[in-house]
């Protein structure tokens, strides 16, 4: 019978199944960071349990780490969380890319970079954006701390089989339209909870034409549509990315693995529980205006009005969001001014993201009313960017160039947007207070955020030519 990649990977990982129970699934890769793991390790210690497969775990520090003046952490509670992870990894024998390690970075950036992320794997992490790794054709999903403890002690999880969903992106992307715009458009069109209970496979011509980095941006935000996970069937692009990566197989082993990976792709004729489709041609550069990722629109449009919604609860949600965001109904998106620009996060802080922002920034200056920072997704990305001179371009334009980490995506460290101020951000969440209490976040692509830094307000990046073109 024709199967989707979702069913193939799921079925290959069932350790035990029984009517009336979730399936017991084997987990191939467990990524760990400092914020959602301490209580899990503590639980192990209290119960006198071991880590079953430390060789299948990999840890890093990203959420809490400072992005300047390393290695000093001013905040004593944050520091305790960092040293706790160090101790836990040492005690339980888990590989750790610590704060100053060359492999350090945001957990969802370093997994693929190191080749730990591979097609066909089941991958978990105590972090909802674990869906990023699905770009390789893996089932990758975020879990809570109790589940982290469960995986540490058993290398398995009880999971009810999710429904399957296809989101097909047909046609080709227009000039200036990026993967970020595509996923924001998908969430705006279908809603913040459309994926609940589902694993999504993204298909279609636009996806096939994307690089791995673009595919990661798409899969990263699956959770913002409520999906358990999002993935893309592997193809030559996937194989080419993985060849030569540190933890990928080598030589003849790689060729064998590659064949296995390609065979995972969804079979012709396989069916999904739900199918959605979006036409790439209708997508323009996107910006959010509200307090969840579905509240967004094209840059040529305006902030919605109450009459655009049918239900009272939607009208009420609009009112609450606009009050928080301090925006007027019907305001053109290009009229909104920003004080902060953040280029970073697991959604958009890979080398190609920094390149696309740098291209717009080169030869220009950050607007005098804007504070702009670039936070590379990993130390490797930072080094590659510096080797190409991207850091000079940003610094000369007036951006700050920082060390890698989650930074202003969730503002757990010192990188905070002050109350009442507005930030153009390449991250994935615009919830109330996400970038600091009272802060106002607008999500967009790296190119759009770079353009906003230059102009001091949102502009359609398609109207802005590179200065040195």
């Amino acid at each position, binding site marked *: 019978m024709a199967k989707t990649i979702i069913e193939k990977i799921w079925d290959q990982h069932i350790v035990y199944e029984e009517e009336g129970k979730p399936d017991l699934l084997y987990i191939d890769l467990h990524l760990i960071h400092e914020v959602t793991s301490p209580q899990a390790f503590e639980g192990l210690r209290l119960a006198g349990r071991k880590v079953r497969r430390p060789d299948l775990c990999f840890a890093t520090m990203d959420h809490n780490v400072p992005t300047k003046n390393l290695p000093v952490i001013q905040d004593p509670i944050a520091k305790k969380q960092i040293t706790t992870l160090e101790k836990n990894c040492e005690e339980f024998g888990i590989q750790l890319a610590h704060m100053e390690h060359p492999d350090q970075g945001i957990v969802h950036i370093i997994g693929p970079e190191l080749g730990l992320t591979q097609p066909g794997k089941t991958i978990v992490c105590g972090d909802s954006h674990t869906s990023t790794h699905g770009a390789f054709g893996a089932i990758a999903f975020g879990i*809570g701390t109790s589940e982290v403890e469960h995986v540490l002690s058993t290398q398995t999880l009880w999971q009810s089989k999710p429904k399957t969903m296809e989101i097909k992106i047909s046609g080709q992307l227009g000039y200036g339209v990026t993967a970020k715009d595509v996923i924001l458009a998908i969430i705006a069109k279908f809603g913040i909870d459309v994926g609940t209970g589902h694993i999504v496979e993204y298909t279609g011509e636009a996806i096939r034409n994307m690089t791995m980095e673009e595919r990661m941006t798409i899969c990263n935000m699956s959770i913002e549509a409520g999906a358990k996970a999002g993935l893309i069937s592997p193809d030559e692009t996937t194989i080419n990315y993985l060849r030569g990566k540190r933890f990928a197989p080598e030589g003849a082993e790689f060729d064998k693995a590659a064949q296995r990976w390609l065979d995972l792709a969804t079979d012709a004729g396989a069916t999904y529980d739900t199918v959605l489709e979006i036409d790439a041609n209708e997508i323009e550069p996107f910006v959010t205006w509200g307090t969840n990722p579905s509240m967004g629109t094209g840059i040529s449009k305006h902030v919605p009005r109450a009459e655009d919604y049918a239900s009272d609860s939607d009208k009420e949600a609009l009112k609450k969001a606009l009050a928080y965001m301090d925006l007027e109904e019907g305001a053109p998106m290009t009229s909104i001014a920003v004080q902060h620009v953040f280029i970073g996060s697991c959604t958009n802080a890979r080398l190609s993201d920094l390149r696309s922002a740098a291209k717009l920034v080169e030869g220009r200056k950050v607007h005098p009313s804007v504070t702009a920072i670039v936070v590379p997704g990993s130390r490797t990305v930072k080094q590659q960017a510096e080797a190409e001179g991207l850091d000079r371009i940003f610094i000369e334009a007036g951006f700050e160039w920082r060390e890698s980490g989650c930074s202003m995506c969730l503002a*757990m460290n010192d990188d905070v947007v002050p109350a009442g101020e507005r930030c153009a951000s390449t991250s994935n*969440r615009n919830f109330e207070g996400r970038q600091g209490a009272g802060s106002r976040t607008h999500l967009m692509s790296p190119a759009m955020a770079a353009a906003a830094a230059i102009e001091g307000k949102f502009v359609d990046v398609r109207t802005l030519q590179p200065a040195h073109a």
Partner: protein
Amino acid sequence: MKPINIVESIIVPLNRKNVDTDQIISKEFLKRIERTGFGKYLFYHWRHRPDGSRNEDFVLNQPQFENAKVLVAHENFGCGSSREHAPWAIMDYGFQVVIAPSFADIFHNNCFKNGILPIRLTVEEVEELLAKGEQSTYEVKVNLEEQTVAGQDGATYSFEIDPYYKQMLLNGWDEISLTFQYEGHIQNYEKQHA
């Protein structure tokens, strides 16, 4: 984990859709390395004004809702971050039951690991409960064994729940100990996939 079966309490009506885990527990409170002590930070930025003073308008700050154990909210409760600090804060504050038309997947899972009962009712039923709870205090008796929510006015709402998770909650089982009983299966799997 503490077993849970019958919970009697007034309901707290939180008439919002898409309540995300960033609102339930804000990131500045995630630095603790313990599982406890998060209750006082629950909905912190809704319970407080930007200057740090108490926001008396927010439902949780109204005196009649003190000691309530049942929270009622609108669709897609618990969306966003996977942080288990969200159910820890809910639990630590004193809630044992959350009722909503729908929950985000990770939050829903996290509830079962902490002895919190998430109940899905229809949108109409939840709106009815929210209206009753907003009009005056409204007391319910939640019965997990029978899968019902019985209101003080005689209205009864029944709900579905996965039988596996129902047993876990009723018995307060530790899932890891349960899984250890499948050690043989795990070893077999590892042998086959070595």
